[in-house]
């Protein structure tokens, strides 16, 4: 049992950060919820069509809870969301009051799985590759290898995602058709088949996020290489690899971990554009479709999922930064 006042300073900082994260999440949910109340007053007509009868409109307004004060609706909505219930989609409703709409959760759940699959595969490729490139460019800095890798990284940073994606399609799917340009996966497919289908989207996403991670790793390692204790290690005869692995890396983990988590959060946004390019049935595509048809409950659900992932990853980055800081771990 931890007594108050006896709490480890790291734990205290982590708890504080968690509390702040929870607060941010709550505020974000308020903003996302408020979006539906900011809709213009006649949106029931827009959803149900011009010919909607008065009874249908009243019933629809009642279903959305528009006859209750906003604060009550927010409470109910939050309670629903906590149980995985995002309400029902706007699409599939007719003026006659016939209701063929689907639960938002049924729309979102399979798409979310697909997106997590794509993002997961990308992370598995991108993170080790970025670390390897960052370390080697730091070791052989100012060499031809370093300059080439850096130039490529700088170029990919300043390009829009869809440009990279279309260049890959042009080269690998159109001119030399080795990979499929459409990433239409479904759950019946075997894993190797799915992997081939998502090869191009995963490659585009990797290119998008790898540059930042690699450059930050390189910068963090180079900063440390200039310190006296590294020179000491070298003078006592440690090999290059030993210096990097045993002396530099332990101190570089905090900034590297932060930048990895931050870039995985960036992946969340990049995934939207890339999914649309490759017509991948993921949550990003779903959100874009929902925005086009102004299907607000689906938009809310997608926005909430994106925001929660983003906040969570940033939170993890912060916490890793705190717990890998040796000065906090061993207080005087």
């Amino acid at each position: 049992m931890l007594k108050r006042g006896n709490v480890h300073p790291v734990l205290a900082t982590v708890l504080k950060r968690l509390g702040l994260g929870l607060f941010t999440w709550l505020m974000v949910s308020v903003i996302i919820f408020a979006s539906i109340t900011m809709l213009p007053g006649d949106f029931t007509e827009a959803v149900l069509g011009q010919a909607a009868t008065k009874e249908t409109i009243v019933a629809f307004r009642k279903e959305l809870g528009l006859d209750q004060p906003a604060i009550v609706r927010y409470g109910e909505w939050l309670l629903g969301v906590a149980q995985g219930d995002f309400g029902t989609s706007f699409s599939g409703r007719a003026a006659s009051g016939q209701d063929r709409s689907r639960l938002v959760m049924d729309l979102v759940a399979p798409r979310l799985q697909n997106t997590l699959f794509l993002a997961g595969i990308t992370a598995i490729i991108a993170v080790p590759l970025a670390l390897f490139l960052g370390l080697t460019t730091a070791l052989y800095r100012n060499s031809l290898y370093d300059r080439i890798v850096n130039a490529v990284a700088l170029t990919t940073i300043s390009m829009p995602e869809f440009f990279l994606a279309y260049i890959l399609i042009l080269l690998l799917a159109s001119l030399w058709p080795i990979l499929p340009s459409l990433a239409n996966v479904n759950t019946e497919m075997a894993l190797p088949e799915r992997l081939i289908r998502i090869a191009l989207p995963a490659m585009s996403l990797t290119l998008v996020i790898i540059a930042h991670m690699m450059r930050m790793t390189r910068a963090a390692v180079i900063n440390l290489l200039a310190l006296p204790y590294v020179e000491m290690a070298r003078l006592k005869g440690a090999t290059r690899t030993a210096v990097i692995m045993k002396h530099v890396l332990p101190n570089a983990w905090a900034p590297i971990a932060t930048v990895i988590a931050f870039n995985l959060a960036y992946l969340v946004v990049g995934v939207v554009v890339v999914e649309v390019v490759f017509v991948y049935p993921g949550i990003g595509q779903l959100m874009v479709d929902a925005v086009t048809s102004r299907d607000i409950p689906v938009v809310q659900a997608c926005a909430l999922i994106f925001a929660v992932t983003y906040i969570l990853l940033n939170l993890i980055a912060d916490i890793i930064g705190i717990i890998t800081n040796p000065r906090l771990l061993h207080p005087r």
Partner: protein
Amino acid sequence: MNNNSQAYSATAEVASVRLRRSRWDRARVTLGKAPRSAWFGMIVFAIYLFIALFAPWLAPFDETQVFVTPFASWDATHWFGTDQIGRDVLSRLIYGARNTMGIALATTLLSFAIGGSLGIMAAINRRLLDQILSRSVDVLMAIPSLIFSLMLLSIFGSSIPNLIIIIAVLDSTRVFRLTRAVAINVVVMDYVEAARLRGDGLWWIMRHEILPNITPPLIAEFGLRFCFVFLTIAALSFLGLGIQPPTADWGSMVRENANLIQFAQFDIKAGLTPLLPAGAIALLTIAVNFIVDWFLHQTSGLRDDH
């Protein structure tokens, strides 16, 4: 002295030292020392600017003029062919420079007007105002801006004024953070204190005491934010939710001509058509990044020779 103009005059020489270089001279000296990457950036940007300003005179056809053959291949009349309903791609590229850059510039200016003034205000008034603004900015920044703008566009509908306002407000959070951070260091200076004692108003202090001292980082940030806004608008247009047809815009042009890419095996030029607007976007961001890099290097006082 009059009869011999060749005579040595100490006053003349000393006086000439005290002659200050004019702004123009100083600009020329700095530009002469600019690295090649910065020159590349500036030349590319100048070309873009020229195309954007004189679009109606440069473009062979109007941006909305429709010709008989859709997806025509590259030839003498239509240098880059025509798009899915038969509009000239080159003309749309040229008009696109004007529309896309204009909207991005307007958005960045608005975002700096909002974020910059609120940032300086928060730096001056460190109590309640600063707390409220900083906390709300924290919350706004916790939602990825592309997702947030998608959500807001679904509510307010996507028209050009909505697009500008939504992205400017979301982007101003970043400007606010930076402005507040640099302005706080200036606010504590004695001359600001003196201005306050003199009884100068908030606006005067912001405009005449603080703003001139935080301009260099803000200009660099302006370049970076312009790139970011430009890419966000391009991404939104590409998703079909930004600038709406028939207005020519690079992001939506990529989307409209994307199908052509599968014919690259038979006609490489057709396959390149959708990459032209995408490449135009990429080239501009790279050029602006080069200029900003050089500008930051200049104003940070870092020199190569050390």
